[in-house]
């Protein structure tokens, strides 16, 4: 089963046959239900996970229990690489499944072995690390440069443009992602609706006016 997963996952297509064989020998597959806590922030980082199906989110909690969603990971993305590469080897965030997921689990010792001996594997990890760094830089810029209203408009546009297959965002998650609280998100969505920018139909938010939303996003 690991062989099929490795050969069929686009993530691993760039790897040499030999590298894939090592991953296959040293990894195993696990299934988890939706709502499962895969990793806990602050616990020792023991494995790298490759998402074969489903979606997960990474978040951090502040001492008051408020969550900041850092990222969502989709099929093909490696999870926990930053924690494994850090010197203290501690999970940097809590990872929770948003849907039933299947992951390929590669223990830390084997992750390190592959990194040290197989340049195609190191390149793959570097590539994902660079992408993650770019996303984090964008998020930091969003939080410091734009007001909440603009951040929400930007986030709605991003979701509609780039993420049509997402498993949906709750108001709490949107609030955590854009660095505010749920009530503010609710109020801004009502504002956008009365201004004719969006329409809400139960679980759907339909964006109506791209030009005006972009204006909001830039304020």
């Amino acid at each position, binding site marked *: 089963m690991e062989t099929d997963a490795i050969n069929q996952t686009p993530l691993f297509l760039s790897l040499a046959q030999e590298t894939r064989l090592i991953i296959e020998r040293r990894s195993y597959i696990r299934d988890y239900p939706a*709502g499962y806590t895969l990793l806990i922030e602050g616990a020792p980082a023991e494995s790298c996970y490759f998402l074969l199906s489903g979606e997960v989110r990474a978040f951090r909690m502040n001492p008051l229990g408020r969550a900041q969603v850092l990222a969502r990971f989709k099929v093909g993305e490696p999870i926990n690489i930053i924690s494994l590469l850090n010197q203290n080897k501690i999970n940097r965030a809590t990872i929770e499944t948003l849907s039933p997921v299947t992951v390929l689990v590669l223990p830390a010792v084997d992750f390190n072995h592959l990194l040290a001996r197989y340049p195609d594997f190191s390149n793959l990890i570097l590539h994902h690390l660079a992408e993650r760094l770019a996303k984090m830089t964008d998020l930091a810029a969003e939080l410091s440069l734009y007001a909440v209203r603009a951040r929400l408009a930007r986030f709605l546009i991003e979701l509609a443009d780039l993420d049509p297959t997402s498993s949906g965002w*709750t108001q709490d998650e949107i609030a955590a992602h854009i660095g505010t609280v749920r009530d503010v998100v609710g109020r801004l969505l009502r504002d956008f609706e009365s201004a004719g920018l969006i329409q809400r139909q139960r679980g759907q938010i339909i964006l109506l006016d791209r030009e005006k939303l972009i204006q909001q996003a830039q304020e």
Partner: protein
Amino acid sequence: MIEMSLPSINFSLCNRCGQCVSQCPENALVMTGQGPAFTDPVNCTYCGTCEHLCPTGAIRAPLYVSWRAN
């Protein structure tokens, strides 16, 4: 037939605390042996209060964002 989106309930996470049932502003939920269930789906306005209050993350009212079809 009207297509209704309803909050989803994960019974394996639900501890049957009843907060969602007692705090729902529309009285759309009732407690059953398994966990909360919708009395009449039409009553639910998808306000998300239940999801916000649920201590275990068992109930979710996700929003899906898309552009208006041309």
